[in-house]
């Protein structure tokens, strides 16, 4: 069975698509595009689609990943184009590569890079909040999870946090000045999401954005000792054989 790994993006208004919504839309896109998807065995066969960790509803992403199994061999370039055409604009299939034997997608993802726009927040204010967050050994926040209300640390999972320099630029959305936060967060349990880090900034520095911030996942992959994130599809690409990395 040929396996194809796909990077897709959730952009603009369609960032409000939940993971379940996306999964249904993707299955329909597979049918519309005529991709020769393989099915599981059994009385109610399911298409072979597996997802890496999905961004929360309302968070945009440039780097979501999934893997599909095919019953007939197909050209990944053509599969990408046909799936992208079959999905609504805003759910965009960015790249598709044939999976090589070896590690799974999940094994290659242990961290995410996020960018958060905070319209109406001054970069200096954000900078002070970030400094307080960084200085803290532990920043506890509360969230309602499936298991009920849970308190957990957000500081430990944050590998990098900074206010980026062009911060003073007005947000394209609201037109008001906007501070921008860059984050690298390790995958832990319970997961630490962008809004948990924002909750952490509220805890340490009373940071209260006047309008809802806008988060985007920029990358997922393996976090190196130097703080870079390695693209999980890199090892599958033809032009960069695994041995040479």
């Amino acid at each position, binding site marked *: 069975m040929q396996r194809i790994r796909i990077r897709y993006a959730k952009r603009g208004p*369609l960032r409000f698509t939940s993971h379940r919504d996306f999964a249904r839309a993707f*299955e*329909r896109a597979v049918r519309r595009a005529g991709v020769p998807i393989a099915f599981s065995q059994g009385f*109610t066969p399911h298409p072979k689609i597996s997802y890496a960790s999905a961004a929360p509803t*309302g968070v945009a992403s440039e780097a979501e990943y999934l893997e599909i199994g095919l019953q007939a061999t197909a050209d990944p370039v053509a599969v990408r184009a046909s799936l992208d055409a079959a999905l609504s604009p805003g759910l965009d299939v960015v790249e598709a590569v044939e999976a090589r034997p070896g590690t799974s997608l999940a094994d290659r993802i242990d961290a995410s890079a996020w960018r958060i726009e905070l319209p109406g927040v001054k970069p200096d204010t954000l900078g002070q909040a970030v400094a307080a967050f960084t200085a803290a050994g532990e920043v506890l926040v509360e969230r309602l999870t499936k298991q009920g209300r849970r308190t957990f640390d957000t500081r430990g999972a944050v590998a990098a946090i900074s206010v980026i320099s062009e911060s003073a630029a007005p947000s394209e959305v609201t037109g008001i000045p906007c501070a921008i936060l860059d984050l690298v967060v390790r995958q832990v349990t319970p997961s630490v999401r962008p809004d948990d880090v924002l909750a952490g900034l509220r805890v340490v520095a009373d940071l209260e954005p006047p309008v809802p911030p806008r988060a985007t996942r920029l990358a997922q992959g393996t976090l190196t000792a130097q703080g870079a994130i390695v693209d999980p599809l890199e090892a599958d690409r033809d032009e960069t054989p695994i041995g040479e990395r």
Partner: protein
Amino acid sequence: MSVPSVFPQLEQLLPRISKPIQYVGGELGAVVKDWDSATVRWALMYPDAYEVGLPNQGVQILYEVLNELPDVLAERTYAVWPDLERLMREHGVPQFTVDAHRPVGAFDLLGVSFATELGYTNLLTALDLAGIPLEARDRTTDHPVVVAGGHAAFNPEPIADFVDAAVLGDGEEAVLEITGIVRAWKAEGSPGGRDELLLRLARTESVYVPRFYDVDYLPDGRIQRVVPNRADVPFRVHKRTTMNLDEWPYPKRPLVPLAETVHERYAVEIFRGCTRGCRFCQAGMITRPVRERSITTVGQMVKEGLEFSGFSEVGLLSLSSADHSEIGDICSGLADQYQGTNVSLSLPSTRVDAFNITLAQELSRNGRRTGLTFAPEGGSERIRKVINKMVSEEDLIRTVVTAYSNGWRQVKLYFMCGLPTETDEDVLQIARLAHEVIRAGRAATGSKDIRCTVSIGGFVPKPHTPFQWASMCSPEVIDDRLRKLKAEINSDRSLGRAIGFRYHDGEPSLIEGLLSRGDRRVGAVIRRVWEEGGRFDGWSEHFSYQRWVDAAAAVLPGFGVDLDWYTTRERDETEVLPWDHLDSGLDKDWLWQDWQDSLSEYEQDDCRWTPCFDCGVCPAMDTEIQIGPTGRKLLPLTPVTSAR
């Protein structure tokens, strides 16, 4: 003058509400057109939540028919949930369309499709959020013309104050005609303002404009007469009937939502209309005559609809799908074509006979077996004669046992409670029927692993049916009968264990009854309920019976009537009914005769297979029964190994 999108403001609210995706649009099949190059602009509303409204066939069809015109723009809007409504009020965001997020108040027309009367309060929310005055008489040329459609529009009197117009019957041609009138009026520079436009619509004789009719009342509260208040509008307004469904193969580009909705399937209407003559069924009365879509058009629509949408389920819809003259060939043809593709086919099955099971088996060849539902509607033979549901107890048991013998473990039986002339005995008969079904099923299969679910709906008398004169049962009587029925089902523990029992209590039905047969005075009740917070009345978690009872008690005595007067009171032959000036084609004398036949338990045949019984529709509407067989088959057929 261009109209800006409200999305930037809305977007700020979306992270704070549940299921934001339903307000975002971006569906496959959605159309966004340039505002300025359109001459006529429609906002189409289904007055319920997006998850219910999006799959609605009527809205999808009109949306597509209108958007196919180059100079016409149609967008959709749905009822917003209270969490978003609160934030929209707080932040001044108006009712918007999901396509381009334009404010509904900026459109020329707001068309609202009422499948049920319980959407009336949601209409008021939408008007209010849109900045459109609630009362039609307060609107100016700056406001959209609000047009009601759908089955509830056959008696729009309770919302007569809130709508500018109502259209009865099929919408495909009606929206085109209205569009033409608005286009011409705008091109002439909108002469005579809103009044002139409404007058032009009224003169078509198929658009009802309530403000041009006065209702006079008798001292006892009954209607004396409904008459035009100006010389140039017709005394009666007639329903529209779309003939030859093969010429209207919509939806061609079905809307495919990102959000989860109640139906995720490509639905094709295989025919419209029904002449089975069930006396409680408004749909069957007001959609006559039967007009079939041919097997070849159905096949073509399914093929193209699936290719376009990527849906994996097909629903073959109609009021009684097994009655299509070529249903056998449609089912086996589609089953052949989609064998081994994971496409599942479903036929809402309500007819009680073995043929239905043959069809269901054919459709489940792919391995996916959908549930079987049979609707005997009445528990005793006597009550089934009253409602004209011609099913004998023997037929019913044989049919259900056949289903069990063919591998179905579970069937659903649908009944009504509160029917005219009904006694406790008629309802208790449901339990005996269910017991017999399980007993016979166990005997036939030798297995204890079979079940049936008894599902009970409350009867609501509807306009343009033989039961339009009938009295409703009070909720107390209904609830008492349902309690007794439950006890009777469980009186045999072995059998009772295999029977599921689902029902709705009588209170929502009574309010639906008030709204169904109400007149213009009921509008004040609707408004008061809405002002007191009434929203989403079709949802049990939002519906408040007390709120309706209180509003009725506050408003109706001023008119010398009350809630009981509208619901539990039987009407006599000479009473002027609020909808008598609205012509569904049914001859009122025939309806009265059918009501009398019902009381004497006399049944009426189906005119597709027996001579015309003069219900009046075909001559009044200049229509005819359009049925096959065409003798054609679905091609190309996938080769099957066993030759037939």
